[in-house]
């Protein structure tokens, strides 16, 4: 088991190297003068020169890369022009907001898509099966920001059920004391049920938006995987042994069908990380996505670089986690000599 994890981690290293190299070049590939970008639109030529020297942009490329890597190793992602804060600090503060949202969205998605896929597979050509197919095709076509806006329009403007899309918590409430950065968890830990409810209310619409967005691939894959597994030999043999339908479908069929679904989750995460940025804009969510977007609009480049890097690293880490999870479930992967 441990060897498998170690092997997977080793395989992730080239990806990380690639990520670092690409983000390096992205910032040096700026048309015009990179120093001018980092100095900001309001900088004087003297200031630009200062920035150039400070960031080592006048040195040979190889040396620049070396400095870049060393900086990264020390956690130095540069400073934000607009706030003057180190990018790393801001990213760290804002990450829980994005994480809470994305994880909740994924949870919503799984809770709807997986049962939908299972039922659709066990009752082919039924109403649910067709509904599943429609959901899958439509879900893939909806732009995520559009879904968000429609939800806001219907549930906030028309029905008044949801609160205004103004961030994580209504100004009326104080943020709960920081433990994990997840408001839902922190408010419960601090025994502040009103804060819990309030943050949940703010979370519903954006999480739902993300959930709807990732419904389609998960439902589609669950259905396909279940269909394939349900017609396999061992499921037939399990039925012949008279095991209860629940055991057959869940312990035998679904556990095997889960495997391709889990690998799909990796792809879904890639989409979610991108969709996150859009959803944060719609709902004014103070996460790292909106951080990057604001920085972009202000031509503040260091945060954007830090954002891309962080997202990529998170993605690599996530894929690693998924690989490990896969290995936990599938002994064939775990025990290959």
């Amino acid at each position, binding site marked *: 088991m441990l060897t498998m994890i170690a092997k997977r981690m080793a395989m992730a290293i080239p990806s990380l190297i690639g990520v670092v190299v690409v983000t390096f070049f992205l910032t040096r590939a700026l048309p015009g003068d990179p120093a001018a970008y980092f100095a900001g639109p309001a900088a004087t030529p003297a200031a630009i020169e200062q920035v150039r020297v400070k960031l080592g942009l006048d040195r040979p490329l190889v040396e620049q890369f070396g400095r870049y890597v060393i900086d990264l190793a020390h956690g130095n992602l540069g400073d934000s022009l607009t706030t003057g804060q180190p990018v790393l600090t801001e990213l760290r503060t804002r990450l829980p907001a994005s994480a809470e949202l994305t994880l909740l969205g994924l949870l919503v998605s799984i809770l709807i898509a997986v049962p939908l896929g299972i039922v659709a597979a066990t009752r082919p050509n039924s109403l649910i099966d067709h509904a599943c197919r429609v959901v899958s095709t439509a879900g893939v076509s909806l732009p995520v920001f559009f879904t968000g806006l429609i939800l806001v329009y219907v549930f906030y403007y028309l029905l008044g059920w949801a609160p205004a899309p103004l961030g994580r918590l209504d100004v009326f409430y104080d943020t709960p004391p920081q433990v994990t950065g997840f408001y839902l968890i922190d408010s419960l830990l601090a025994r502040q049920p009103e804060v819990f409810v309030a943050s949940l209310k703010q979370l519903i619409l954006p999480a739902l938006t993300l959930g709807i967005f990732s419904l389609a691939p998960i439902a589609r894959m669950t259905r396909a995987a279940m269909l394939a597994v349900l017609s396999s030999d061992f499921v*037939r043999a399990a039925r012949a042994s008279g095991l209860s339908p629940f055991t057959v479908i869940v312990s035998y069929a679904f556990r095997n069908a889960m495997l391709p679904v889990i690998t799909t989750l990796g792809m879904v995460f890639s989409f979610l990380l991108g969709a996150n940025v859009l959803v944060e804009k719609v709902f004014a969510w103070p996460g790292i996505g909106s951080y990057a977007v604001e920085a972009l609009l202000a031509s503040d480049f260091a945060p954007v670089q830090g954002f891309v890097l962080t997202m990529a690293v998170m993605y690599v880490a996530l894929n690693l986690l998924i690989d490990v999870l896969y290995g936990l479930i599938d002994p064939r992967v775990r025990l290959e000599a």
Partner: protein
Amino acid sequence: MTAVPALSVEGLSVEFRTRSGTVRALDNVSFAVGKGETIALVGESGSGKSVTAYAVMGILDRAGKVTAGRAMLGGLDLLAATPRQLAEVRGRELAMIFQNPRTALNPIRPVGRQIADVLVRHGNVPRREAPERAIEMLRAVGITDPARRAKAYPFEMSGGMCQRVMIAIALAAKPSLLIADEPTTGLDVTTQAVIMDLVAELAEKLGMATIFITHDLALAGQRSSRIVVMHAGHVVENAPTRELFAHPRHPYTAELIAATPDAAASLDELASVPGALPDLRRADLPPCRYSERCPRKIDACAQPLPQATGSGHIIACWNPLPLRVIDRPTESAA
């Protein structure tokens, strides 16, 4: 003998919906297995032997439908049973082992747990004791070091071991009838013999009836007391083993025997059964599905076959071979 048979299949007909038409896989199949008796269902690939088994077990493909017939197990008609009734009976009274043991086992579940699942479900074994009993079952089917093997996964075991595990699962709840679908295909010859011995031994110990499904007539001859010969979804002959080999009456049976390596004196005499299976999607299938390749075909063969009755030697043929001892294939003109 008027004892109630363990399983009595009467007039079973099965159809499959496919893209290219409806396949009439089984037509009016009838046979019975006595308590504790071992019979064999024999026929070439595509004759419908496995379909019969699947229909009886209620695990037909989604495209398959039972269009007629009954399968009486005790007092219960398996084909008309509710899913709940079936779930009670399957595994407990009626069990099945499959052709490819590796794929018939759950690949990501330790074999001990798979046995335990059945024990808990049917064997009235409390969950706590099930792992122990599973290990005992593994020992009973001849797996060495059963305690360690119980934690193993199917991919870590050989084909023969997987087959033993399947037997353990099938026999865990001590059923009264076992259907063995080509249990030795894919195993080497030595393992084949061992597995067959194991099944026979356990069957005797449990007083269990067995239906062997095989294309190997010689194997059927060695292991069963009665042979049911199938061709293209029909039962063509049904007789006690010795009787069948001594006096095969149906032309197809005779051809099958001639095609069996044991029966031929030399390689030169080894004949193949002439012709091929008819396309079962045809709307114009003749009543006797062998007639188009039968060397003994007569005009009467266009009539619906005589109803198979009795428990002795059943023949579904208008022009069966005369009752004499033969040891060569028929010589009539094709």
